């Protein structure tokens, strides 16, 4: 699980162009949106693409993102249980 969390942090930094952020700067339980990393709605769409592209998870209902993207740890849990690749 720790490996997946680290992998996920690296992917988030890359796809969202968080140039000055390092994986260790992202708290496993910190909110990704609103506070924490301060991501916006376009970032949310990019995370949906990341889930499909890297883990084969297609979110049919965008509202699911509100729960899944609560934190990196919640996101990793969801990926662990639903990944197809």
């Amino acid at each position, binding site marked *: 699980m720790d490996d997946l969390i680290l992998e996920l942090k690296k992917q988030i930094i890359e796809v969202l162009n968080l140039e000055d952020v390092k994986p260790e700067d992202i708290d496993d339980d910190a909110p990704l949106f609103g506070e924490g990393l301060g991501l916006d709605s376009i970032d949310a*769409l990019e995370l949906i693409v990341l889930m*499909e592209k890297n883990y084969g998870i297609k979110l049919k209902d965008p509202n699911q993102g509100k729960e899944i993207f609560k934190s990196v740890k919640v996101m990793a849990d969801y990926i662990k249980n639903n990944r197809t690749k």
Partner: protein
Amino acid sequence: MIIRRWIKLTDTSVSLNGKKIETESCGHALLTHLYRERNDYPKFFKMDALSKLGFIATELLLHDESQRFQPRGDRAVIFIGKSGSLADDTNYQKTIADKDNYFPSPSVFVYTLPNIVTGEVAIRNKYYGETCFHVIDELRADKIADIISDAFQDADTTSVVGGWLECSDEEHFEAYLFIVEASADGQAPEWNKDTIREIINNN
């Protein structure tokens, strides 16, 4: 109309009001270098190449202006270029070119319009006036003079941040931007095609 300040920023050099700013970088690295020297605005890294160019050029142009970041509706942002958002359009095309690896990027897609850069500059500086990006065939001082002069025809605009903003790809770009004002000032260069041409070619 007069020119209050101007900047020339290309992929190999920078000068402000005719004074060269020394830098060792070039191309995309130059923009990142200039950003890191002067700014703390993480959204910069999410921008496409055209917006990065417009952002850095206007940051240099406006950095010591008094009353900066005070909301104002009398200043327009008007850019003119040849390639528009072609650099980002090309990047977006790459994300949808392969049917077996078809993952359109939302963050690349949002920059596939040339006028997005005018919004980035307006948001950054709290400008609520006109914003516009004109695409023309080639760099022409007379066109730049006419387009920006026309902006002063409305009742609200007293100042324009604008000029030539061209980015053919991430490594090749040029910006010749001006602060143009409606006021009369005997000390400042007059806003016309001859002055623009002289600044682009000599200063």
